[in-house]
């Protein structure tokens, strides 16, 4: 490892511009003649739009246009799509209602846009929006899954009777029933996985710029995957063919999944820009973010686990109701199915699993992938079940897990996934040691003497990352392949540009990706730049989500590097009059092994471009590209243990210690990995203790600002004690598994297991607010 190579905690290159306020986000961009959009949004959870009167608004100063849902439908802009087809157990395809970019007839959640005002300034647009009169006829609404599936419930879409999108199953029902019939013990649990608002620091924004002469659109947008945005806008929404549409995702301030999707606002901005003949900018505010960014989670589950007399798990049955909100967002259908139920085996040998998932429409904001996407729900369920089982079977929770760990790899679970490698005992051992698990009983007794209830909670998570092998996801209904692309361009003076289809919106790619180049060539990372986020600059790519950018994106860069190096070696061998096989790369030089003959990398690059002295038949230039499609998912796994105290007077939780032992395979930049784990853990703790996007029974959001929606703050979370127990991923040449989501996947169960241990009552839903914990302590 060089000072800037793989494994070095290099300080992030991009932070200089972020920390000094020089980042360039969508809202920082100002175009000549730019207009501003303000959306008129439904205040009702469910209503018919009977009429829109914009006559008064159109007369107001600075108003350029007021455009409505009917007009966007008339102009044949496509409805929003859901990109993963799920088939119900009866063989029928999922049942989807249409989602137009602005509602022409019916609104189905509070915040859904019905019209947009385009004006000379943001404030003028907002003023005019207040003068637009929308006549609604309110309809009965339903916000909760249980209420939505009752007969007689308000119906959202005629296409989906009973508000049911699908009823999907996985696993072997007969084998699972047989396991339960023979079980020595059965453990049952009901859990709710609370709905979350993603709350990236930067709200969503878009600027659309139509060039009538070229019939060409440029879209600046807050996207995690600009190429996918362009593909969908072009192929499904009829905005423009791909070569007439450039999508730029500049600096993006966090996504957590919520910026994967193509939203109505971007579509409307593009369409409106052509209609008004000027650039159109929209920047969402925080309230709009709460109302319209795709939410996360929102499951209600009943699960049962069967054990034999030796406390070995013999079967698992799960039934989950997933709340999709009012419309099916881009990847929503896959989240509670292939990203959730395929992980229900956890870290355990479970011979038989059967899961059923019912997807349900409600009059709420659409729900889609949010950091972890399906895997936190699976991990939370399994780890709550294991803890419940340990309590019921009266065995130590860590020991029960050990009894059931998978120890042989590869391991085929009964729910599709084939785990390639791992060492679950190693991470459990490391975490138990770090927290002094053995000494806990003594600490609990001491806390009790001080009037505090102390608890410890274990969570052994596993996730499927490195999303994803294209063939595998294609066979499961995905509408796209999930490979990644890269191009390595060596300039004539030897500096290097790496073009990646991944997108960095906080992950630090501009540093880690350079480290691979530094590792291989021995050049300083200052000589390398990472280019991403612009469909005109970068070849087609799939973007960043699902902890994929190192495992898939960086592997694509490696493949391109190998091709480039191979050509560079030929050039060097020719120049040094040596044979290609003898050339080695060291410290920025191409050397003849075992001699002092060497040529510096910039000279090789220059030779490639001057082309005066290249081997016969060789093309000039030094630029190579690669597409990499993984052969399997990767399986990061680990153990989180948390120790905390509950104040019995207030129900308030305070952390004593939180340890994480993760297996992410190879780490490129341990400092950045640590940051990713910290952020993930805080989100997991936020879900466990604080965050909850709540609707009342009529579908009105109750938590649409930070005064009501509790985001975790620094003083809500402990200092983390992190460690790594590494097994290299055999699926990719760098041995990387991914680290972006682990914290959010594993943390919640550790916290709830610890609180329920502290208070001696097992049933406690998230978020475990002080009020809820206090009521649980004092419940009869």
């Amino acid at each position, binding site marked *: 490892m060089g000072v800037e190579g793989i494994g070095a905690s290099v300080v992030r290159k991009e932070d200089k511009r972020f920390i000094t306020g020089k980042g360039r986000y969508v809202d920082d961009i100002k175009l000549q003649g730019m207009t501003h959009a303000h959306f008129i949004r439904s205040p009702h959870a469910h209503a018919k739009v009977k009429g829109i009167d914009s006559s008064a608004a159109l007369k107001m100063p600075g108003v350029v246009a007021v455009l409505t849902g009917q007009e966007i439908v008339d102009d044949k802009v496509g409805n929003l799509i859901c990109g993963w087809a799920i088939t119900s157990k009866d063989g029928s395809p999922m049942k989807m209602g249409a989602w137009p970019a602005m509602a022409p007839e019916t609104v189905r959640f509070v915040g859904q846009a019905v019209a947009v005002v385009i004006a000379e300034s943001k*404030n003028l647009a*907002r*003023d005019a929006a207040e003068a637009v009169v929308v006549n609604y006829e309110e309809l009965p609404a339903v916000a909760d899954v249980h209420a939505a599936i009752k007969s007689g419930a308000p119906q959202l879409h005629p296409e989906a009777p009973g508000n049911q999108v699908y009823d999907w199953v996985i696993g072997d029902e007969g084998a699972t029933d047989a396991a339960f019939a023979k079980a020595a013990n059965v453990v049952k649990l009901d859990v709710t996985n609370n709905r979350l608002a993603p709350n990236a620091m930067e709200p969503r924004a878009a600027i659309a710029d139509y060039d009538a002469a070229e019939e060409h659109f440029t879209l600046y947008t807050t996207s995690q995957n600009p190429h996918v945005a362009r593909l969908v806008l072009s192929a499904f929404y009829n905005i423009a063919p791909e070569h007439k549409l450039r999508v730029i995702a500049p600096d993006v301030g966090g996504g957590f999944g919520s910026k994967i999707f193509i939203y109505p606002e971007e579509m409307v901005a593009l369409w409106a820009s052509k209609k008004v003949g000027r650039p159109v900018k929209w920047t969402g505010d925080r*309230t709009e973010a709460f109302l319209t960014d795709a939410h996360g989670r929102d499951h209600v589950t009943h699960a049962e686990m069967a054990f034999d007399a030796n406390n070995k798990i013999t079967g698992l049955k799960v039934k989950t109701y997933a709340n999709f909100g009012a419309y099916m967002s881009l990847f929503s259908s896959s989240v509670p199915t292939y990203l959730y139920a395929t992980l229900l085996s956890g870290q355990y040998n479970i011979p038989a699993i059967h899961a059923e998932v019912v997807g349900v429409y409600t009059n709420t904001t659409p729900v889609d992938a949010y950091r972890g996407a399906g895997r936190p729900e699976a991990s939370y369920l399994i780890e709550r079940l294991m803890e419940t089982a340990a309590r019921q079977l009266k065995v130590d929770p860590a020991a029960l897990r050990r009894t059931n760990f998978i120890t042989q790899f590869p391991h085929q679970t009964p729910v599709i996934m084939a785990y390639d490698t791992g060492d679950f005992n190693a991470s459990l051992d490391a975490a138990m040691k770090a927290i002094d698990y053995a000494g806990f009983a003594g600490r609990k007794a001491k806390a009790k003497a001080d009037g505090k209830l102390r608890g410890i909670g274990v969570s052994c998570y596993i996730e499927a990352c490195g999303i994803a092998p294209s063939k595998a996801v294609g066979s499961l209904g995905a509408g796209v392949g999930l490979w990644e692309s890269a191009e390595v361009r060596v300039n004539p003076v030897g500096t290097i540009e790496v073009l990646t289809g991944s997108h960095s919106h906080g992950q630090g790619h501009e540093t880690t990706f350079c480290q691979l180049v530094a590792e291989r060539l021995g050049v300083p990372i200052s000589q390398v730049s990472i280019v991403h986020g612009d469909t005109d600059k970068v070849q087609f790519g799939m973007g960043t989500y699902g902890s994929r950018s190192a495992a898939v994106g960086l592997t694509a860069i490696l493949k391109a590097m190998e091709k480039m190096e191979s050509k560079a070696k030929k050039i060097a061998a020719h120049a040094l009059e040596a044979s290609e096989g003898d050339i080695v790369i060291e410290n920025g030089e191409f050397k003849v092994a075992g001699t002092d003959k060497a040529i510096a990398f910039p000279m090789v690059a220059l030779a490639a471009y001057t082309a005066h002295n290249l081997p016969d038949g060789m093309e000039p230039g030094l630029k190579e590209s690669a597409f990499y499609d993984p052969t399997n998912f990767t399986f990061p796994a680990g153990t989180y243990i948390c120790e905390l105290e509950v104040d019995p*007077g*207030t*129900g*308030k939780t305070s952390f004593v210690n939180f340890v994480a032992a993760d297996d992410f395979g190879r780490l490129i930049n341990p400092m950045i990995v640590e940051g990713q784990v910290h952020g993930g853990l805080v989100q997991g703790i936020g879900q466990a*203790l*604080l965050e*909850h996007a*709540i609707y009342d029974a009529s579908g009105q959001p*109750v*938590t649409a600002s*930070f*005064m*009501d*929606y*509790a*985001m975790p703050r620094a003083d809500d979370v402990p200092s983390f004690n992190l460690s790594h127990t590494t097994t290299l991923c055999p699926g990719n040449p760098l041995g990387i598994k991914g680290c972006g989501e682990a914290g959010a996947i594993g943390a919640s169960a550790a916290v709830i297991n610890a609180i329920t241990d502290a208070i001696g009552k097992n049933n406690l839903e998230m978020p475990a*607010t*002080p*009020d809820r914990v*206090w*009521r649980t302590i004092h419940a009869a």
Partner: protein
Amino acid sequence: MYQTVYHRASSVDEAVALFSKSSEAKFLAGGQTLLPVMKQRLASPSDVIDLGKIKELQGVELSGDVLTIKAGTTYFDIMQNADVKKAIPAIAYLTSVLGDPAVRYRGTIGGSIANNDPAADFPAALLALGATVKTNKRSITADDFFQGMFTTALEDGELITAVSFPVPAKAGYEKMRHPASRFALTGVFVAQTKSGEIRVAATGASQSGVMRVPAIEAALKANWSPSAIDGVSISASNLLADIHGTAEYRANLIKVMAQRAVAAAR
């Protein structure tokens, strides 16, 4: 934000005169309540009269047994002030757990009590300490000043100039922070005056804003100790209930916070 006219007053008289000349004016102190409300277009004052540069509204004075805090003094300045820490450390503590650093640097005692949010901290301190609110027109006792959620005895255009607190024998404050906003989910201020009177005020709990808690006052009168409150029962009726706390939970918090405030009282 809607359009508004901004004025910067340099004296109390000027501020009051500007107010009376405008159609729908608002005084602006720290802006921590007024500005968010304006940004959300929930308030549309014709004129905003900034009090921030009025010297006579700044500062703290300790004279004998009376601590006077001028209306425009920020929470941060109150928290740091040596006289406050010496005379009524419970007030210094209260400001240290009020909101977050940004709110503490900008927000003022005058703005807080004029606004009288049912979950604000200062109203509990004023009520428990038997403070007096000074305005450009008169003096109002805390008992008369707070008149229910977001309602005070202030007349239209009346400007708070200062609050004076009799220095107590002992006082303490404890608060359960609202998980999202950091206001008081419930906070209790307990005080024992130099003449031996016991006054206890709870904020964040009641549907009618800050309130005295006679049952706890009686228990503490008999025995000034946390355990004296063990047997007190607080009714949940008329208490606030929302997603962060049921009425029963708040009833419990009144007791628990009172006990902790007594334990912390100095």
